[in-house]
Structures are given as structure tokens and as C-alpha cells.
């Protein structure tokens, strides 16, 4: 009998332990008292994985002068969709532990519309006069600024200066430059003409939005929900890509290109023109590159002059559930200071958001692409600013991909794109 009793007691005990364990994890909140615009205290900065090692310096620089308001850096994964899921979960749980968060430009509208981030007005007003216009526009939703631009990015045209005398400024010029000098595949004896990122992923939305915006179109109207793609402008923009695959000035391999694959092709001398982000510059000029010294950069071409790049980059926003919003606001101003912005450029090649840095002689000497990048960003257009962005970008990717694969016509692709966005934002 006695062993049985002992076993019973053990099992009971283990059940109690399990239950107790569950109970204690539930109540984490309940500390902290005052919140609001004047509250100060230690904060947490949540940001994507710090691949270039900028964060220790950032934290040290801030903590030196803020002994009582120290910042803790929390790094997320380096995948954008995982970062988004992580933020969504913590906001839904109203987690006060996420004070300041890094926001990809395309998430701004969703976070703002759901009330997760604090509008930067009134007590939270943030000066924006020193910043590049489009970066501010991308952080603005419904007429209010919701985030502080932190790092920008714009598309650039990389071209082979040994093969063409000067950079094309229009699509037609670019196509003409390719006549007779290129083949229709990246494995031919001659390089292919042009490639961007045309695999079915977020990069395709970036490239398609660039083509449509360059042609004067607009995918979603300013209200953030009405689609506007059944227009001659959008048709002209999409035609540039679709004709590229049809006529061969875009190689069919590009249907599988993300940033890396297009970069590899250009680096191996298999492309005459490539659309990519500024980060490619250092790699193409580095050792092991077949095109080192043979390429240059220019703003993206459009139908009639400089095209409209899609805006990349990140902003920094204050969580509505933060307890120390005054400290958070100071931190926002801090990350936009000259010191942080130029450190991020020199150490991490992050495109700055301060206009002045693009004309800084010392920086331009080190990063010769800065003036071209400034031109690209100044002409940049944010991707559709809408709280329904995930559904909108899915609609763009699917329909544009079908069109460039040639499985559907441009007109019917745009027609179902219009319907899909309409349905996704119908609410």
C-alpha cells in the first residue's frame, strides 16, 4: 500500500507544480505607475537583427548621457515578415516592454490605423525640416506623422560604363542602348539588357510600383483604400515590364530574381543594366567582381526622364503602450542626429535621412553614390500607403507576376488587380 500512496502523492504534487507554473507566468504587468507625455524611465528599442553591428555603439552613445533612462536593445529576426509578426503580437498584447520600435516604411499605415503608435504632433511634435521629403511622406499617414525616418533607401540604375557611353535617362534610351549589344538570356555570349527583382515576392511590388509610378500612375489613392490601376498610366508602366520579357530586353531568368540573384548576374558581367539598392555598389566594386571599375550608377530611368524609385528604409516609432513616452521621444530625436546618421552611413552603409549628409564632402569622397542616391530618394514615391498593405502587396505580386510571365494580358491583370485591392480594402 505505502508505495502506491507515495506514487499518488508524487503525481498530485507534480500537478500542483504544473498549475503553479502556469499561474505565475500570467501576471507580468502591474508595475510602473505614471504614464503619459512627461514620464521618463528606461526604454527598450526593438529593431531587426543588427547585421552591421551598429546597435552597441548606438546604445553606448545614448546611455552615456541618460543614466536614468537607459535604452535596452532588443533584436528581432532578420526576416521582415517575422519582425512584423513579432511586433503585431506584442502590440495586440499591449506590451509596455516595447517602447520604441523600428517600422518598415510599408507598415506605417497599418500601425497608425490600429492605434499602435503615437502620432508625432502636439507634445510629441518632431521637427522634420532637415529630413528628405519622401522619407517624411512615407512615415505620414492620414496627414499626421507617425514615425521618425531612421534609414532611407532608393533604387539605383547600375550600368556598364565600358559598354555604354552615358547613362540612359529614359526607358527608350536604355532599350536603344541595348540594340545589337545584348542577348535575351543571361547565359548567352553577350550580356542581357536589363533586370530588376521580378520573382514573386515583395521586391516585385517594389519594381512594379516603380514602373507604374514612373509612368505617372498611382496604385492606391490617397485615401489608402481606393485602387486606381485601370488607367493608361498604370498600363504604360506595366507594359514596360511585360514587353521587356516579350521582346527580350529583360531576360526570362529574371522571373526568379531577388536582389542577390540580380546582383550576381550583374557581377558576373551578364547584365548591361540593373536596378538595385545602394548596398550593391560596395560588392560590385569589391574583389572578385568581374565588373569592378567597369560600372557606374545613375538614377532610375522613366518614360520621360528620371523615374520614380520606390522608397525603402525604416522609421522609428513610439508604442502607444510605452510608459516612458517622453524618453522615447528624446530617443527619436537622438537617432536623427547628425552623429548617429553619419555613423550609420560610415559603419553600416545605411542611407541617411538628413539632406545635409548627402552633400558632405568627406562622406561623398567615401561614398561616391550619395549625390545620385539623393536624386533617387528625392524622386521616390512610397509604395501604397494603406493599412491593408499585406493584402494589397499580395494582389500586386500575384497579378503582376501573371502578366510578366505572359499567362495573362496586361489589361486583364490590371482589371483583377483593381478588383482584388477593392475587395481587400472593402472592410
Amino acid at each position, binding site marked *: 500500500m505505502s508505495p*502506491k500512496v507515495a*506514487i*499518488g502523492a508524487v*503525481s*498530485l504534487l*507534480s*500537478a500542483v507544480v*504544473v498549475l503553479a507554473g*502556469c499561474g505565475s507566468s500570467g501576471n507580468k504587468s502591474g508595475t510602473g505607475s505614471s504614464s503619459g507625455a512627461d514620464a521618463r524611465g528606461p526604454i527598450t528599442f526593438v529593431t531587426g537583427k543588427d547585421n552591421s553591428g551598429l546597435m552597441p555603439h548606438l546604445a553606448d552613445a545614448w546611455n552615456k548621457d541618460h543614466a536614468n533612462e537607459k535604452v535596452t536593445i532588443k533584436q528581432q529576426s532578420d526576416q521582415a515578415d517575422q519582425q*512584423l*509578426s513579432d511586433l*503585431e503580437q506584442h502590440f495586440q498584447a499591449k506590451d509596455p516592454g516595447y517602447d520604441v520600435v523600428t517600422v518598415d516604411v510599408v507598415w506605417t499605415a497599418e500601425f*497608425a*490605423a*490600429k*492605434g499602435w503608435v503615437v502620432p508625432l504632433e502636439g507634445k510629441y511634435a518632431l521637427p522634420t525640416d532637415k529630413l528628405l521629403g519622401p522619407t517624411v511622406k512615407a512615415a505620414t*499617414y*492620414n*496627414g*499626421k506623422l507617425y514615425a521618425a525616418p531612421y534609414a532611407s533607401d532608393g533604387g539605383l540604375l547600375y550600368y556598364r560604363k565600358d559598354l555604354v557611353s552615358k547613362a540612359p535617362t529614359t526607358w527608350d534610351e536604355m532599350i536603344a542602348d541595348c540594340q545589337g549589344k545584348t542577348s535575351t*538570356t*543571361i*547565359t548567352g555570349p553577350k550580356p542581357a539588357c536589363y533586370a530588376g527583382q521580378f*520573382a*514573386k*515576392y515583395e521586391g516585385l511590388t517594389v519594381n512594379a510600383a516603380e514602373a507604374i509610378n514612373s509612368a505617372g500612375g498611382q496604385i492606391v489613392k490617397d*485615401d*489608402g*483604400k481606393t485602387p486606381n490601376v485601370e488607367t493608361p498610366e498604370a498600363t504604360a508602366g506595366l507594359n514596360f515590364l511585360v514587353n521587356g520579357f516579350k521582346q527580350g530586353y529583360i531576360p*526570362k*531568368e529574371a*522571373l*526568379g530574381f531577388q536582389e542577390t*540573384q540580380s546582383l*550576381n*548576374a550583374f557581377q*558576373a558581367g551578364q547584365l548591361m543594366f540593373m536596378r538595385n539598392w545602394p548596398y550593391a555598389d560596395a560588392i560590385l566594386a569589391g574583389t572578385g567582381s568581374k565588373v569592378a571599375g567597369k560600372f557606374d550608377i545613375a538614377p532610375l530611368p522613366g518614360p520621360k526622364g528620371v523615374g520614380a524609385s520606390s522608397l525603402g528604409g525604416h522609421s522609428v516609432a513610439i508604442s502607444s503602450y510605452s510608459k516612458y513616452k517622453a524618453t522615447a521621444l528624446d530617443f527619436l530625436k537622438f537617432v536623427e542626429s547628425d552623429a548617429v546618421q553619419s555613423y550609420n552611413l560610415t559603419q553600416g552603409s545605411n542611407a541617411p535621412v538628413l539632406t545635409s549628409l548627402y552633400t558632405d564632402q568627406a562622406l561623398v569622397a567615401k561614398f561616391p553614390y550619395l549625390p545620385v542616391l539623393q536624386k533617387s530618394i528625392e524622386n521616390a514615391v512610397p509604395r501604397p500607403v494603406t*493599412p*491593408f498593405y*499585406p*493584402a494589397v502587396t*499580395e*494582389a*500586386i*505580386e*500575384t*497579378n503582376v*507576376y*501573371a502578366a510578366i510571365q505572359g499567362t495573362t494580358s496586361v489589361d486583364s491583370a490590371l482589371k*483583377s*488587380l483593381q*478588383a*482584388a*485591392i*477593392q*475587395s*481587400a*480594402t*472593402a*472592410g
Partner: protein
Amino acid sequence: MTLAEPAAESTATAPPATPGTKRNKIKTGEGRLAWMLVAPTIALLGLIVGYPIVKAIYNSFLSDNQKLNPTTGLLEPAGAWTGLTNYKHWLLQQCPSGAGKTITCPTGTLGSQFWGSISVTVGFTVVTVLLETVIGMIFALMMNRAFRGRALVRAAILIPWAIPTAVTAKLWQVVFDPQGVLNKLLGTHYAWTSEKWPARSAIVIADVWKTTPFIALLILAGLQGISADIYESAKVDGANAWQRFVKITLPLVKPALAVAVIFRTLDVLRMYDLPKILTGGANGTTTVSVLVVNQLHSGVYSASALSTITFIFIFAIALGMVKLFNANIVGTPGKGGK
């Protein structure tokens, strides 16, 4: 959980013991002790398995519909009771068109990809499980033979199974790259992952490469339980190799084979990582699991409905397969033993 049962049962009943005698042995006191011992486990399972399932099913009846206030630009909170709307959305392809009306889901919405993803998933399941079973059987027969270098062959066959799926996917991405290994070897210029059928076959090839060892291993375990005496007496009776395989090996290895097939079928029905990494779900490779995760970002309640549908779908198939194989699993050892 139901899956483990046939496996456990088959080993438990391998020496022909009848369930009746077993039950008689259990006295009421021992039965109560048994219950007390498993109670914490059951409570814990209820908490970490039961609660999420019930919560997900409840969520699937709520609405993601969020009105956008035109002046403030703020979304009104979602979560109103909406009955079967989410299920109608997926199963009947009803997408909102504004003002409470619905239309057939236009191309480019996630709703329109539902039936496609179901057939893609089922297609992957049938093809990969078939290939894996046939190749796995061949591997197992090879590994079961005694020959020089057998240890080496066994290790070589098992390596793919030891590699994490995400790594496998990245590995095959390099192989299937337009400028990758495969095109160099074949001398072709195929864009493997950016056309429908090549992309699908790429996933099938990668999956078969990775999980054939799993099936081979389970079959091998079954093979090793077959006594050599049976083969010898069959040989003496004049049975040729094919007859020995069909009349002895197959029936005796059936229980192990059934478990392997059920496990793999359920695994493939939930396939997510390979298509996600290899093709991103593009070019007709969106499986149901990929669709669920894509939907998460644009509406968690609708995603709950989709996962409930997936859950029921896979559960029904699992139940069907267990029923189908169960008779064999229990029956075979009895017949084989006598």
C-alpha cells in the same frame, strides 16, 4: 496522438496475446492508480493542446472586417460575431466587395488561392509519398543485406534525414538556381523555380531526397524483425526471389510500412518550409500551410477559419488512413505468427 496508437499496438500485440486476458489482469485498484498517474499529463495536454484548438475554432467565427474611419484614418476594432462568413469565404470563394455584398474572389486575393492550394497540397502528398515509399523500400532492402561497406551505405542514406529542412531548402535553392549546379550538369538553361511544373518538381525532388531515409529506416526496422528461417524454408520450398518478396517480405513488413506512410502523408499535408524557402509559394506551389501563414498578416480570424478547415481536412484523412490500415496492422502478426 492517435497516430502513435497503431505503432504501439502493433508491437504490443506482436506476441499473439489476446486483449481479453490483458484486461482481466487489471484490477480496479491498479486502474485507479493508472488514471492518477496519467492525470497530470492529460491535464497538461488539455491546457496546451485543447485550449488553443478551442480558441482557434471560436476565433474562426469572428470577423476581420475593420471599417476605416475616413476622418481619423483609424480602423475600428475587428472581432464581431460573424457566424460562418469566414468558412463561406474560403470554401465558397466569397470575397467582400463593400457595402456588405460579396463577389467571387478576384485573382490576387488570398481567398482565390484556396482550392488551388488544396489541390497542390494533395498533389504533393500523393506524388511524394508514392515515390518515397518505393525508393524507401529499395533502400531498406539494400540496407538489410549483409555486404561489405554496409555501414557506409546506411550512413550515406541517412544523411539527408539528419539535415534540417530549412537547410535542405537552401541547399536545393543553390542546385536549382538558373546558374546553379543542375543546369550546369544537364547543360540546360531551365529557370527551375520560376515556372509552374519545374517549380513543383523541384519541391518534390527536394522532399523525396530528404525524407526517403525516414521511410527506409522504418521499413528497415520492420525487415529486421523477420526471421531468416522463414526465407530459408521458402527457398527450400522453391520460392524465387520475387515470390519471397511478395509473399513474405511485404505482408510481414506491412505494419511498419503503414505507420511510415501515415506519418509521411500527414507530414506532407502540413508542408510549409520547403515551398516557403524554395519558391516562396510562387508558381503554383502554395500549400495550405503557406496560405494560412500568408493570411495571418491580413486577418487573424479568417486565418483561424482556414486553419480549422485544414485541421479538419488533415484529421479526416488521418482517421481514414488509420481505419484503412488498422485491420492490417492488428491482423497481420496474428496470421503471420501461425
